[in-house]
């Protein structure tokens, strides 16, 4: 057989049938559900009198819309003050009850952001197909699982048929070789990649991230990278299986049983692109040249290293590009040539499906330890990705590090990443955010988002403006408690 890419292998192993119109029916092993994009799908099933094809393939949790203050969370769903939000979260609970779907409800210890919860529970496994009505489903590709973000019609389709209609994508390899500098993280890699290929550079492709810099990352780091594949236009991001992948999975609730484990691992080890496999496009980056990244505009591709400046529209290579930069600068309240380190912050958000895992919180705590959030920063908040991440962080004393430094320590959820709940920016406010989208209004009407790594966000909170975390005096890492 010809040499195959990882994507080719995953595609072939889930192909049910191909149709004459160029589409294929792909079998879906796992669907993750949340409150925002599922109610209309469940309603569709009811209206057509259809039943889910396979209940056990589904796992639900409320994340997008849940409050993150303890005071509102104490009373569970009933405690959600906003009526419309409460009804939506309650509807997820009711739908899961009615149909018999596994649910981690609002105050379950396992509740959290769907893309943190899936891997944490072992519900995302290598070689699976995973879908969710959320574009950041690309996250799960870090496990060599073929994962697509889908719309609500497709959520209903997968519920009813356990299949998704797809056209096969092209293959792209993004190879990042070399060693990252101190203080440079997975987030900086992926922002640099998006800066390189553009926000539509991956459209129509499945991107496999490869190279020594990717292999050196933890699963948390790989998830951060695959999470943002969609910000480069690619619905699918992938990383090949290696020992890091296998070590992460062992012992998790949904991991294969003891009797299946050896066979599963043997199969998973084959989930790599064959030597000589054909990629339609290859992009190479040298990890050692990547600086901590900061976005200055309203699209993730509008990004620059911390030592850089806000670009001048006059230097743009096309009229369209120039107009885009002008529009972004006006929205962001920045001027051409301004140093990135001169951007002052009003709020800082550490969280989201991109950067709310335990490693992210450790990275931020390392910077925050023994320091204070600048008095000019109105609010700095840390929102763990799940109840289990929160618990682990508290076990390590990270919550105290943050609270002593003046950060708010919140309950798990999507929070200010998309500001569906009460956590949002005011008009004109600049925010250092570890999330994934700096779109106009994303974090609140008129809000100005700068995407950065957790360490960079923590450093910005303390300085009150962006600083190069590499020049920031590091205190030793808080010790993780051993098992």
């Amino acid at each position, binding site marked *: 057989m010809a040499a195959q890419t990882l994507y080719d292998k995953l595609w072939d192993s889930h192909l049910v049938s191909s149709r004459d119109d160029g589409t294929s029916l792909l079998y879906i092993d796992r669907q993750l559900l949340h409150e925002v994009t599922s109610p209309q799908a469940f309603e569709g099933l009811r209206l057509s009198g259809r039943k889910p094809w396979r209940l056990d393939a589904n796992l639900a949790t409320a994340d997008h819309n849940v409050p993150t203050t303890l005071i509102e969370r104490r009373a569970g769903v009933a405690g959600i003050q906003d009526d419309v939000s409460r009804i939506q979260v309650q509807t997820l609970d009711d739908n899961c009850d009615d149909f018999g779907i596994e649910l981690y409800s609002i105050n379950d210890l396992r509740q959290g952001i769907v893309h943190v919860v899936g891997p944490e529970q072992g519900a995302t496994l290598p070689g699976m197909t995973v879908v969710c009505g959320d574009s950041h489903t690309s996250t799960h590709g870090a496990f060599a699982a073929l994962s697509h973000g889908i719309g609500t019609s497709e959520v209903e389709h997968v519920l009813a048929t356990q299949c998704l209609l797809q056209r096969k994508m092209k293959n792209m390899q993004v190879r990042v070789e070399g060693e990252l500098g101190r203080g440079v993280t997975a987030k900086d890699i992926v922002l640099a990649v998006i800066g390189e290929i553009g926000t*539509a550079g991956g459209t129509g492709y499945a991107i496999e991230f490869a190279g020594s810099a990717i292999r050196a990352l933890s699963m948390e780091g790989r998830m951060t990278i695959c999470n943002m594949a969609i910000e480069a236009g690619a619905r699918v991001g992938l990383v090949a299986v290696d020992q890091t992948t296998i070590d992460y999975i062992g012992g998790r609730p949904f991991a294969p049983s003891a009797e299946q484990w050896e066979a599963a691992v043997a199969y998973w080890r084959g989930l790599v692109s064959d030597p000589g496999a054909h990629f339609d496009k290859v992009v190479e980056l040298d990890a050692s040249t990547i600086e901590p990244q900061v976005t200055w505009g309203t699209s993730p591709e509008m990004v620059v290293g911390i030592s850089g400046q806000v670009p001048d529209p006059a230097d743009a290579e096309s009229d369209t590009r120039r107009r885009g930069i002008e529009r972004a600068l006006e929205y962001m309240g920045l001027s051409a040539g301004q140093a990135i380190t001169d951007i002052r912050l009003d709020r800082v958000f550490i969280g989201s499906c991109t950067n709310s895992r335990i490693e992210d919180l450790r990275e931020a705590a390392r910077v925050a330890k023994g320091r204070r959030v600048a008095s000019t920063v109105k609010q700095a908040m840390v929102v763990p990705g799940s109840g289990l991440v929160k618990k682990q962080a508290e076990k390590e004393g990270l919550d105290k590090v943050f609270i002593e430094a003046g950060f708010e320590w919140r309950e798990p959820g999507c929070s200010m990443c998309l500001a569906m709940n009460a956590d949002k920016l005011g008009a004109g406010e600049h925010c250092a955010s570890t999330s994934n989208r700096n779109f106009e209004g994303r974090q609140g009407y008129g809000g100005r988002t700068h995407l950065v790594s957790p360490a960079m966000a923590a450093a910005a909170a303390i300085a009150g403006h962006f600083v190069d975390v590499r020049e920031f005096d590091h205190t030793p890492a808080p010790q993780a408690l051993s098992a």
Partner: protein
Amino acid sequence: MSETHRIAGVAAPLPIGNLDTDQIMPKQFLLGIDKSGLADGLLHDLRFDAEGRLRPDFVLNRPEYRGARILLGGANFGCGSSREHAVWGLQQAGFDAVVAPSYGEIFYFNAMNNRLLLVTLPPEQVQVLMDSVAHGQDKRLTIELGEQIVSTPQGDEYPFDLQPRQKRMLIDGLDMIAMTLRDAAAIDRFEAEHWQVRPWCRVDIARTRARKRGAGLNSVRSQGQALSSEKER
């Protein structure tokens, strides 16, 4: 989609690249449990200012574009979030088609599944159409789905491609779930073979539940382990 497979009406130019679905349908309109009321949310922050006042200069607020059925957009239209609410909102506000140089992929599938026509034309042709609509007296365009042509009142024609599935969805309005369920036997066969080769792909909630006592602790522990073996940079 009309029975004649023709969309004719006022076209509104919106020359913004990377117009994401957060802008097309802001988050405060995603709280519903049905599909209603989304016309109010369409392009909300572009239509209204911070105080909720209409921005009179915005294209959809101008009288000459009232009742527009076609939206002329920039490249990578509908990128970002998977929210299908963006498509529902466009349709509820009266749009039957978008014409742009390229689209976000999830938006593209969402549009197809709801029979919102997405016409892809080269950027320079979209620009010509935008200019002709913006400067001409007659703001209408006609899209013939059968012949796959966009035409101006002056008679200029711009042919476009459509995927076969997209065209069938638009013309026949297929119930995709019913169509897939016609292959139910093939799905059953696939499942049986798949689970034989890859048994761990068969999620078994009952088995997981049985192991769940202390399950949360398990995963926290292995997280700690994964980290203790992590290399220090």
